[in-house]
């Protein structure tokens, strides 16, 4: 009896976690007629893949949005890893004066309300001509992804055994050499987890992208999804096809590397 209740609970939990996302995929496979009909069908009567084609030929250049998001999120992730590993290594191993203040500063920035920097950043980016560019958003995302990267990477570096690094230093290898020849290869899995987390943060970001990249060809996927034009009705089928296209790869990646991601996500909070 206890077992039956447990299994029922388990099914309920999985259902609550997954069904809204599953509903998105189901809706994306229905014909427009079936989508706007009553009663609502729980499964598509027949699989209709036209919606996925419409994502790319219903007006806005959605393929460009995917490219934009890849460049911006990819670039920002790379910058976060490069600068974040330098700073994280210094905080973990080299004695930095005011380490605690620096960490508190990063934590503070991670919790900033984004609107507090919105108008000045808009004015600055406009002045130096970085509105509607990849570089502008990339820099902004780097700043807001760095606190997480530094924090995570610092924790990963601290867990590595110190002996090899010390003997390398004694043999005359510079701290930079130690970082790139010894620490980074060892911290590979940690860096990968950190990169995924930062990439997801950038990929999913909405407010900065909405304000800074407004021209038709420079939008990112999150903004692009909200702007599909409908003639009379909101084109739900197209919207959810696009949503599926831009979330499914990430979700598969996450399911594959879940263990690392969960430990990366929770580490900062527990330590």
């Amino acid at each position: 009896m206890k077992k039956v209740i447990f299994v029922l609970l388990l099914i309920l939990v999985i259902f609550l976690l997954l069904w809204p996302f599953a509903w998105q995929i189901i809706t994306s496979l229905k014909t427009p007629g079936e989508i706007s009909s009553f009663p609502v069908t729980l499964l598509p009567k027949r699989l209709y893949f036209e919606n996925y084609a419409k994502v790319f030929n219903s007006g806005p250049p959605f393929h460009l949005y995917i490219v934009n998001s890849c460049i911006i999120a990819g670039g920002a992730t790379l910058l976060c890893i490069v600068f974040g590993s330098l700073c994280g290594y210094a905080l973990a191993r080299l004695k930095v004066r005011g380490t605690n203040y620096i960490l508190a500063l990063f934590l503070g920035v991670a919790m900033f309300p984004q609107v507090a920097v919105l108008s000045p950043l808009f004015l600055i980016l406009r002045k130096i001509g970085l509105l509607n560019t990849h570089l502008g958003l990339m820099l902004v995302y780097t700043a807001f992804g760095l606190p997480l990267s530094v924090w995570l990477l610092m924790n990963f570096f601290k867990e590595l055994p110190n002996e090899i690094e010390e003997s390398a230093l004694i043999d005359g290898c510079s701290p930079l050499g130690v970082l790139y020849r010894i620490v980074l290869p060892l911290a590979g899995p940690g860096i990968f987890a950190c990169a995924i987390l930062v990439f997801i943060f950038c990929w999913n970001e909405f407010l900065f992208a909405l304000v800074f990249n407004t021209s038709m060809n420079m939008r990112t996927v999150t903004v692009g999804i909200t702007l599909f034009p409908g003639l009379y009705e909101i084109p739900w089928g197209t919207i959810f096809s696009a949503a599926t296209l831009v979330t499914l790869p990430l979700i598969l990646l996450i399911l594959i590397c879940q263990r690392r991601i969960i430990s990366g996500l929770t580490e900062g909070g527990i330590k």
Partner: protein
Amino acid sequence: MFNFRKYSFWFCFPSLLIIAGIALYPVLHSFLLSFFKFNLHENVIRFNGLGNYKDLLIDTRTREAFYHTFLFTISSVSIELVLGLLLALFLQRKFIGRGLTRAFSLVPWAVPTVVAALLWRWIFNDRFGLLNELLFRFEFIDTPVAFLSSSWLARLSVIIAEVWKTTPFIALLLLAGLEMIPQELYESGKIDGANAWQRFSNITLPLLKPVILISLLFRTMDALRIFDTVYVLTGGGPGNATETLSLYTYKTMFSHLQIGLGSTLAVLTFLTVTFVSAIYLLILKRSAN
């Protein structure tokens, strides 16, 4: 040997420079702008002293935005904490497929907030939405409900969307905390004759308290700046019934193009968030002692 001080400075320098230039300086600039009348459309700047602050203090829309922000934060964070704790306790048990279930709880977190909000908007749709269909099928209603057109139902919808998106994150944080509690404590509790509830309230809760406080801090700060969900799900409507501080600030700046007044709102939001986090840090410090 190497001059470590020099190395550590140059290692930290790029990160600090980026943070200072893109996060810290703009906040100070926002404070400055908040004392000016500055309309992006006319592109003229005029000093206004405390004028913007006065305008906002007597503006009922500002008060409502504060009220909605706190309403959403307090209700969604407290619901998330309870559900998250239940989910964490559930996921801590050993069963076949536990790893997969844990992985599934990453799905709501990984879906972009915008996509989740669109999804809920579709589920709450007044004519072809899934929720109406289910309520209709089980005969709770006989005419479709326009969830997003009534103030309180719209607010409830925002809270539901937020809770779905972020409960798993809290659960994973709490789960990590649960796993750090030594099993022996439960064993000796059992030997001493404590029942499940006593073990939970005397062992689990006190030892989990720091982790609970930290997850509350993270989620509260995040909830206070809520923008994406409201922007997509209700647009702040019906009327201004679900408009939050971030949304009102965004609209003031980029729909009405009033950068000065918007910056004043942004400063108020910033001060609110800082104030609330200071309270949390005080509580954390006290409980650590």
